[in-house]
């Protein structure tokens, strides 16, 4: 009996492996394949899944109109859990699948680990969310493009706003110890240090996912900070803002793209009122954005999540580049990306030599009556 079960288990496992290997090697001819990589499971999945939705919507749209270069767009969605080592697996997998371009990765760290592999395989990579400045500024990754502003650009905007418009003297800079948040906070601090008008009274990382932030909120109060610059994502931001407001603090709260998300307002509700955040120029009236969001709602039954517009724009830019280049050849695609403007939910964009999108203006928003409103 026991032996029989062992044999059964063994054959089951071998069979399983065989099936997966075969399933993985199935090739579809006559399509243009675009890889979509990012965290689709684990704690950061909420930042990766909206990009998949965006890519699916764009692909559906384009395929309905006849595809790119007469071929259908096929998505190859791969999970990287935001971990560098898994990202290299994902990258080699996508390279092996002969993708024409990659939409992703989401986290800067995973992107950096994967880029070397794409670079050698001559594959264009476009991230909707990797904001680490070195990705475009170091010159190491000529195949990298992004539809989001880098950390330093955002930090600069935040700092200038705090100094020129709010005219605060004491600023607390907080971050979530993460790749994105801490990078941004570091830049904000260095800009503040160069500019002598204000003083950084507090520079600290908070622990993401903690159940209560009252200690750090007390500390902000005690240090007499007039404004908080926070680098990180909306779940932590909403907890901090809520606790600050409940304690009756009127301290300005300035944050980044990771907070300029409607979920932030929905979670923090009345306490979100008055919060500032940087983000791409107001695109909510852009007909493409309206259409994209409405479609997301129709297909998935909810409002899109983080980086949705950026991903939508990136996907459009990639498809456009292939169309304009007339092929999926690397050099032609890069040239098309750099020269041709494309209409996206973020506006008319193309990419500069370093890979940053031009035409994506950044602006400061404020929550007014439960909505992010662009401040002119």
């Amino acid at each position: 009996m026991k032996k029989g079960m062992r044999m059964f288990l063994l054959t089951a496992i071998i069979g399983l492996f065989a099936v997966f290997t075969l399933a993985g090697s199935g090739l579809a001819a006559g399509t243009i394949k675009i890889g979509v990589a990012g965290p689709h499971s684990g704690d950061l999945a909420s930042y990766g899944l909206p990009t998949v939705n965006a890519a699916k919507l764009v692909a559906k749209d384009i395929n309905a109109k006849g595809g790119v270069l007469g071929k259908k767009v096929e998505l190859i969605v791969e999970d990287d859990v935001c971990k560098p080592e898994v990202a290299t697996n994902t990258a080699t997998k996508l390279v092996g699948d002969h993708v024409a371009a990659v939409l992703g990765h989401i986290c800067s760290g995973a992107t950096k680990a994967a880029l070397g592999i794409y670079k050698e395989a001559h594959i264009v990579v476009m991230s909707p969310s990797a904001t680490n400045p070195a990705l475009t500024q170091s010159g190491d990754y000529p195949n990298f493009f992004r539809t989001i502003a880098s950390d330093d650009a955002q930090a600069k905007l935040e700092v200038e706003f705090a100094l020129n418009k709010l005219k605060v003297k004491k600023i607390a800079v907080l971050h979530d110890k993460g790749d994105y948040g801490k990078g941004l906070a570091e830049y904000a601090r260095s800009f503040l240090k160069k500019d002598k008008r204000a003083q950084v009274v507090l520079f600290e990382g908070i622990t993401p996912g903690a159940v209560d932030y009252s200690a750090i909120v007390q500390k902000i109060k005690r240090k007499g900070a007039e404004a908080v610059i926070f680098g990180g994502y909306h779940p932590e931001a909403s907890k901090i803002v809520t606790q600050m407001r409940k304690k009756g603090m009127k301290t300005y709260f300035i944050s980044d793209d990771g907070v300029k998300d409607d979920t932030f307002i929905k979670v923090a509700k009345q306490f979100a009122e008055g919060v500032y955040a940087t983000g791409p120029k107001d695109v909510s009236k852009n007909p493409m954005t309206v259409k994209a969001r409405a479609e997301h709602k129709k297909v998935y039954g909810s409002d899109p999540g983080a980086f949705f517009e950026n991903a939508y724009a990136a996907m459009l830019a990639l498809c456009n580049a292939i169309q304009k280049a007339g092929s999926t050849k690397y050099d032609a695609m890069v040239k098309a990306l750099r020269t041709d403007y494309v209409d996206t939910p973020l506006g008319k964009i193309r990419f500069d030599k370093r890979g940053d999108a031009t035409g994506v203006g950044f602006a400061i928003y404020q929550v007014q009556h439960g909505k992010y409103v662009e401040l002119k």
Partner: protein
Amino acid sequence: MTALNEIKKSLLVSIWFMFLTFPIMVIKVNTVEQTISWRWNRLAAVGIGSFCLSFVWRYMLKRKETGAKKTALGNGGELSAVQRLLQNPRFFKPALLATAVFALIYPFYFSMYQVNIMTTALIYVILGLGLNIVVGLAGLLDLGYVAFYAVGAYSYALLHIHFGLGFWACLPIGAGLAMMFGIVLGFPVLRLRGDYLAIVTLGFGEIIRLILENWNAFSYGPSGIANIPRPGLFGMHLTIHQSLIYIYFIMVAIVVFTIFVVRRLQDSRIGRAWIALREDEVACQATGIDKTKTKLSAFALGATWAGMGGVVFAAKTTFINPASFTIWESVMILCIVVLGGMGSILGVILGALILMLLPEYMRAFSEYRMLLFAAALVVMMVFRPNGIISAVRRNYEFKGTNEKETA
């Protein structure tokens, strides 16, 4: 009658699961728009699915039980089919040869992706074998093993940045540093036992990660270290594919070396001291084994392999940041050891290959990947509680040469 009974049981199970999954599977609320969508078809799927699966589940459980009974009734020392095969040199030798040949030709027949994931799996093989020393042999539950892995990876990255040291110089240094950390951790936890030890090691792992995250001046913080060079081969220029194959062979060599050392260790004086420690601490001390030395050596040797794995890991990914060294990583390595079979070298190797390759092959299931992986973890544990291949207890039998004299 029994058939009817079985159906009744399955029906109950399916009703229970339908009840269980009802709110989360069926109702989807949008708290913002205040809308609810009801997804009744899912309930039906759950009902039918659990109805069918419960038959399989009970059947398998029954088989497992009768199997267990048989071994209990028969001679207790009966070896499993795999183990018996392994001890038979007529099977063992060709199998070993076949594995060796397969390992040698593997990278030339499979794609870069396959080579890459296999290399990752091999790194986990040595991590598993290292942790096996601590958990499987010495019986010390370590939930912070990833800390040593991080030490290895960061020592290569930092030594390369600051002193320009290469991969081959860093491999022993990384291993040595990790060993030192193992001893440092070993000292305070000598007094602790069981799960108190587990939580302290967990804390140690988290401390290392948090320091790497916070201390920017030292570790470059959460944005990590990029452009770590892959190992060089006499200054030749290698494409990524070639250097991945090269790393693959380095890993194969390290794995062979590890197996050799661990086998030797197991049968050595210190190895038996570890096993004695695992079985009964008090009795072990009573036989005159130095508990401090034994425990420390287990920690130190376990950590050494992790350090080595870390160096190769940094060289392979070329980019490291603290996100690779979370507690989940420790947990996964522990799963490898337990699932493979504590104390069994072959078991741990199989465990590492299965647990590391399964999520990759499960990519075919896209979003259901981790769900199925988790289910597989539970199922494997339930049906093979001793691991895939449980360790063979070494028996030293008195073969009775003195019979004549007594008679």
